């Protein structure tokens, strides 16, 4: 009898009582945790991530942010398997340089998103285990957020949470930014200060309830003036 549990999620905690004979197999993936969030405003975008790198019961690092700067107007957040995150960002950087040299201009956020989709789909049969969210300004200077699944399906959104605490954060964002599931509220557009405060509050809540999220929060605010980074401490337990 082959217990299904032997194939289980590489990152999840093991069961410590005997369930039957189990077939073990090498898995090329590991789950390193982490949560990423991006919000698009009228003329700004925010990409935020926690900085904890974990595996199973251990924490590898408390200072491993998951936001990577791509161009002056685009930041990508990658969570999932850290090895694939690093390789993927190296590949994206290389492709950005190639584009810059051939076309004499930087890639726009929409173009980076379309390119990332094809890069991810190129590995359809051995995917990058990465949940990506791109945040930046589009050609008209408006905030843009593009969220991806691990094989390249993508969509432009106003806000998106990805990573280990995404299932907890997404409904909260739907309610606070999308004004969903509320009756009789005024739909006020989000200001930059309110958005940054909301992101901080949301991560503090995530750190309370998700074990893989915590340590510190890195917030990147992208405006036409440039990219501004802040680090806020979160709970370390």
């Amino acid at each position, binding site marked *: 009898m082959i217990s299904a549990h032997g*194939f289980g*999620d*590489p*990152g999840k905690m093991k069961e410590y009582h005997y369930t039957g004979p189990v077939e073990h*197999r090498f*898995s*090329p*993936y590991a*789950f390193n945790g982490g949560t990423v969030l991006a919000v698009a405003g009228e003329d700004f975008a925010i990409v935020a991530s926690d900085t904890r790198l974990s595996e199973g019961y251990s924490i590898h690092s408390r200072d491993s942010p998951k936001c990577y700067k791509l161009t002056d107007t685009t930041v990508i957040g990658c969570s*999932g398997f850290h090895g694939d995150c690093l390789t993927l960002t190296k590949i994206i950087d290389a492709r950005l340089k190639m584009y810059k040299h051939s076309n004499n201009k930087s890639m726009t956020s929409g173009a980076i998103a379309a390119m990332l*989709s*094809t890069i*991810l*789909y*190129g590995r*359809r*049969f*051995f*995917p990058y*285990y990465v949940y990506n969210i791109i945040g930046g300004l589009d050609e008209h200077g408006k905030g843009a957020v593009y*969220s991806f*699944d*691990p*094989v*390249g*399906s*993508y*969509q432009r*959104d106003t806000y998106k949470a990805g990573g280990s605490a995404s*299932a907890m954060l997404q409904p909260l964002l739907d309610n606070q930014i999308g004004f969903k599931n509320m009756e009789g509220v005024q739909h006020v557009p989000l200001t930059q200060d309110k958005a940054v405060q909301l992101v901080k509050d949301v991560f503090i809540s995530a750190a309370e309830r998700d074990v893989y999220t915590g340590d510190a929060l890195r917030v990147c605010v992208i405006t036409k003036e440039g990219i501004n980074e802040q680090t806020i401490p979160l709970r370390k337990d």
Partner: protein
Amino acid sequence: MSSQLLQLHVCKLPRLKKSRRNSGIPLHFFIPTLPNPAPSNNRSLFPYSPANQSVTVRRPFPLSHGTTTLGFIFQGGVIAAADTRASAGGLVACPEVHKITPIHSHLVVTSSGSGADCMLWERILTREIRLYQLRHRRCLSIRGTAKLLSFMLHPFKGTEVCVALTLCGWDKDLIYVCSDGARLQGDIFSVGSGSPYAYGVLDRDLRWSLSKEEAISLAREAVFRATHRDAYSGNNVDLFHVTAQGWSQRKREDLKEEYYRDMKRKTNIVEG
């Protein structure tokens, strides 16, 4: 004698030899060659042929699946409708996906199956159709498009690519193409986990002589009932109407409102 013929074939048509390795077809059988763009696309996009891969790596995450899409033909053209939910395992990955995409001004495709596969294959199809249009100075027919798509998907038969597209075109043609290799023409198709519920509603009221408004409201009703009963379909409904003049899109409607209106109607009937 036959071995000399064999030699001739091998020298003149090396492609036949390759096909013999792949599919065990006898050497003298003529295999129609795929159109030129398709193989080179596959080679540049996919570093290793999926047919060669004998070991599949187990994925630790679920991909988005589950949907209700439908298309039907009536006297006023073709209607394509779909819900907008993308679910990955038990989570709603995105409540506002576009499952109906225009390929060009007179052709629309509804997608079902794995979200990433559909999105990328639609992109590839759009590029191929555009290239055909530029090279041959005319639009490829819907049947030709369906055939092209089916042949492009063929190398991935047996792999995990899961794509079920319905092409809805201007000359009242509706063709269903799927990654298993099916290519079917019909008058009414509904695809996805919610399709049984949609078929039930459509089979009752669908007639050739429907007016445009009746057809639209029938399609909306079918998607609404399917989203009500199927867990993996929901959120909004997208509607496209394709005629000889091109496609037109109806504003996306939230089915939550429709549900409340329906409840109200039912209580009025009970009371009144």
